[in-house]
């Protein structure tokens, strides 16, 4: 077995999510280079995990900015919904006016026809 055949497996073994096969284990036990690589991957992983407990301090005012951003977004949404409600009311009014106009026109047309028929008889 060649060292580069183990390349991928060593990174996965280092984080404990997989185990080496028997032949791979035998190779690592005899190969100083692969042992060193495994140790290096484990060291890196331990150090990466340790970063989890390290907090980087934001510049002051971030919490206030976050809350203001949410407030502002809430206002934008409220305005948008108000505009869309107005649009609905406007369109509703327009539809009602159109319907009333059409009904009026039909009524007038019917009356005219009736009066013409009355004159003819």
């Amino acid at each position, binding site marked *: 077995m060649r*060292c580069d055949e183990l390349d991928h497996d060593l990174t996965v073994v280092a984080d404990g999510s997989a185990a080496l096969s028997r032949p791979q284990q035998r190779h690592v036990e005899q190969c100083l280079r692969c042992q060193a690589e495994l140790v290096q991957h484990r060291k890196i992983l331990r150090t990466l995990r340790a*970063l989890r407990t390290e907090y*980087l301090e934001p510049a002051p005012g971030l919490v206030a900015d976050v809350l203001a951003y949410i407030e502002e*977004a809430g206002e934008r949404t409220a305005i948008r919904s108000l505009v869309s409600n107005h649009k609905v009311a406007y369109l509703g009014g327009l539809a009602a006016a159109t319907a009333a106009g059409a009904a009026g026109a039909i009524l007038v047309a019917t009356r005219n026809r009736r009066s013409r028929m009355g004159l003819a008889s």
Partner: protein
Amino acid sequence: MAVAAQQGDRSAFEELVRLTTPGTYTLALRLTNNEEDARDVVQETYLRAFRGLRNYRGDAQFTTWLYRITANCASTFMTTRGRHRHDELPAEELMVDPHSSSDVELMAAGGELRDRLTLALATLPPKLRAVVVLRDVYEMPHEAIASELGISVSAAKVRLHRARHRLRQELFPESSEAESRAV
């Protein structure tokens, strides 16, 4: 507190923001590698969290849920930003050659693997950095990482493997060079 916030208690939500901001900002900064971008990601994260509070089921820690949103926001942000401008390196990175003598002196002076690792993380391409940070620092499952970054699980694993290799090359250049010569 999360339950109170879910029920509409505005002050409970504000308290949650105060308590979790350092962690959220740290993750955002590790993902974006830029303070200004990290602040934008944090703002967007909390807005989405606020709007999606009803979706938080409480089966995981609130921060776990929040960090998934942060990862998603950072990914979206980096994609959008990538369309407009190239990933800019901070000034100090532009000045530091990872193999120069000044850097070696810096490493010897600092001595800490943690410092070198932080530098190495910053030099990774954003796509590789995101996966290795979420998996190896925050121990997020591959499936969650894939879902938040909008990639397949196998793509997430490939990126993780590449990122780990790049980090090892940066941190242990002698052994990596010896290996490439031997192969």
